[in-house]
């Protein structure tokens, strides 16, 4: 059994700057923030390390952080700082019984995250769902298609906070 703090220290030693930080001010769950392009390496280490053995990915969720900022620059023009999309990984070790949560954040413009599908097959459909709902692109995912929405859905990614219902779908009026 290892506490998330200890795991964070271990990861920090091993991966150095690929581990961005540790969010612990939240009342219930804490997160180790990881570089989106290093998440696969980190995951592999977490799964295979003898002390850690995180053999099970309980849940993988995309989140729209909705943290875009509108600021005014020196000339008074409005500058929009684009928000971020995050992916939360809830890991659990069946053998050792400890849990840890990872988090990666990417900007809306360039939402590329390394896929962990090859580490935990659970991630396959969950990543497809996160792609479908948020447009987060999982690099090296073998079959990144929409999963819940129709394959020809063109109105964007529904769970983003700025999503607008389309008026028409394939020429048919969407009621409501």
């Amino acid at each position, binding site marked *: 059994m290892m506490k998330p703090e200890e795991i964070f220290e271990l990861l920090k030693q091993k991966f150095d700057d690929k581990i961005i930080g540790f969010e612990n001010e939240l009342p219930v769950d804490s997160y180790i923030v990881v570089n989106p392009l290093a998440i696969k390496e980190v995951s592999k280490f977490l799964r295979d390390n003898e002390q850690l053995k995180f053999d099970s990915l309980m849940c993988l969720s995309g989140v729209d952080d909705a943290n875009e900022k509108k600021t005014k620059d020196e000339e008074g023009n409005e500058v929009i700082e684009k928000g971020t999309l995050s992916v939360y990984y809830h890991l659990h070790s069946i053998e050792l019984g400890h849990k840890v949560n990872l988090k990666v954040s990417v900007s809306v413009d360039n939402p590329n995250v390394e896929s962990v599908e090859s580490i935990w*097959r659970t991630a396959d459909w969950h990543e497809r769902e996160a792609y479908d709902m948020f447009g987060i692109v999982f690099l090296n995912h073998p079959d990144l298609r929409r999963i819940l929405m129709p394959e020809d859905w063109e109105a964007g990614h529904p769970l983003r906070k700025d999503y607008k219902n389309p008026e028409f779908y394939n020429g048919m009026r969407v009621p409501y």
Partner: protein
Amino acid sequence: METKTLKTEELILNMGPQHPSTHGVLRLELELEGELIVNVKPHIGYLHRCFEKHAEAMTYPQVVPYTDRMDYLASMSNNLGYAIAVERLMGIKVPERVEYIRVIMAELQRIASHLVALGTYGVDIGAFTPFLYCFRDREKILSLFEMTCGARLLYNYIWVGGLSHDIHPDFVRLTKEFVEYFRPKIVELNELLSFNKIFIERTANIGILPLDTAINYGVTGPMLRASGLKWDLRKNDPYSIYDRFDFDIPVGEGEKGTVGDSWDRYFVRVQEMEQSLRIVEQAIDQIPEGNVHEAVPKRVKPPKGSIYSRVENPKGELGFFIISDGSVNPFRMKVRGPSFVNLSVLNEISKGHLVADLIAILGSTDIVLGEVDR
């Protein structure tokens, strides 16, 4: 004369969305070689009702009826999972009476859900009679629920911090009667279906799910246990008051074939019904007096933060990932439905089997499309 090598083509067969054995609106795209399965591609989303998007526009108590509609065969358990998640986020402690009633309800719901799973599994294999026997017994459970909260399918019963109603004065007596009534029915089901030679032939050694694959795919619930791992959140990550009861975790033993085959998945459910009866029996005698509304907050407004909370549903691990931004609406709610994850392993375990086996395998995964698509 020139000779050409014979070219064979794979037959693409669409099973569903309207098909008697897909247990809802699921479409399976089968690549067949004759009747042999080369590849199964599940297409889901036909029942997508935007639960997660809806939840963001609702206050926390308003979400409860929506959770009912995910796994509509185990609404009580969904309610419980959600209520526990929000309570953990807010740090609410519910009265003892509520805990006991919740456990009883959840276990009755587990029996009801397993009855549907076993009955429809019989239909998948071609035995229609056990199906009606199972539904007859399930009706009795539904009547208990109806007596408690007025609904037979979608209960909205377990609230954040409490329950919507207290139980009916007759509930305890009738539940005891039900336990007495139901015990012999499990034996009957075993005689009629579980140990039927043809049934065993159809299900043993079919769709074997090895343990490491199961864990890697995140498979949970009876499916994982059938693969041989003693893993039950009620024991391994106890919530509510499950640590006070004495019950066993049935696991697949490969009695009729290999560990983790369809028969094991089936039989684990049968054994779980017995264990649930044991829990109900223990809990029903100990219900303390109290007010079920005592801990229900006037205004559900969790602090800023997030939680991933999971409970053992009849079908597996139901997880709620809730991010709160400190307002009365959840900022983000993600549901990790057990059916969703369990379905994803289908292709892996059904390759190389016949179409008829696919039905047996799909039936043994016991999915509810309401939960897969949410």
